[in-house]
């Protein structure tokens, strides 16, 4: 159904979840909403509730404490959903990889659709990652 895929590509709503990161990636993600980068041009809106979201943007190495909440929020996002791992911590745990309280990397817990490398990735990199994710064929 091309109209449905067109609609999904044109209005990807984002839910941001920080699993213990240093919030460098979070301020870059929020910076992407502001006039200099303005992701609303692509229809991307930051949503408050997991129920309204299509893409789960996760930043930070998964600390042991937040693992259950992450899984819980992941289950609350309705299908069809995608997961973006933003930042080196989300991809592999970066400097905190071998700490005792960190799972290191989102893909140990969830199926990740797109990785945005960088510590922190610049807003342009995050937008580029999202654009590639949206145009990726199922």
């Amino acid at each position, binding site marked *: 159904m091309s109209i449905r895929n067109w609609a999904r590509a044109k209005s990807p709503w984002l839910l941001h979840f920080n699993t213990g990161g240093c919030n460098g990636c979070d301020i870059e993600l929020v910076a992407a909403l502001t006039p200099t980068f303005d992701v609303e041009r692509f229809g991307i809106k930051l949503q408050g509730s997991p129920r309204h979201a299509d893409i789960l943007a996760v930043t930070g190495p998964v*600390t*042991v*404490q937040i*693992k259950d909440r992450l899984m819980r929020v992941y289950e609350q996002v309705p299908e069809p959903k995608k997961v973006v791992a933003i930042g080196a911590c989300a991809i592999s745990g970066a400097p905190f990889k*071998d*700490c*005792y*309280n*960190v*799972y290191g990397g989102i893909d140990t817990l969830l199926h990740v659709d797109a990785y945005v490398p960088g510590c922190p990735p610049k807003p342009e990199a995050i937008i580029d990652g999202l654009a590639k994710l949206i145009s990726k064929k199922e």
Partner: protein
Amino acid sequence: MERDNEITQNLQLIFSNKLIEIKNPRMRRIFARVEMGSFKEALPRLISDVKLNHLVTITGTDLGQEIELLYHFTRDGSTVVTVGFKIPKDSPTVKTITDLVPAAILYEREIHEMLGVNFEGHPNLAPLILPEQWPEGIYPLRKDRKFEELREIGSKK
């Protein structure tokens, strides 16, 4: 510099024979080590006479057989006075100072969780920052466990 000397004399006066050593490595930094029991009695005078009104934090270090507690105070935001004492590792109990310094309620809880020191009289020593499923009795900042072992315990959950 003269303020540091004045504080040093004050400390020597308050702790007198209980003072193990005192050093002033650079400007506005004073480190004093005292015997175990003497700190709590001297605290009211420390706050009133030496005017150490702001407790920056409490640092706990595992020295093998003993645990060293360092209380970092500042005197109106400039000189940092650190008073420390050692407690035996097998029975690490200390009296709390939250009755005199309410700000210490947080720092004592971290030391309790990370090093296993329990503070008598502390209003609420519930678990804090370690994940809920962290097993009792394992204190990450103690040196008796190798780093990889800790990693195992953490990620097993």
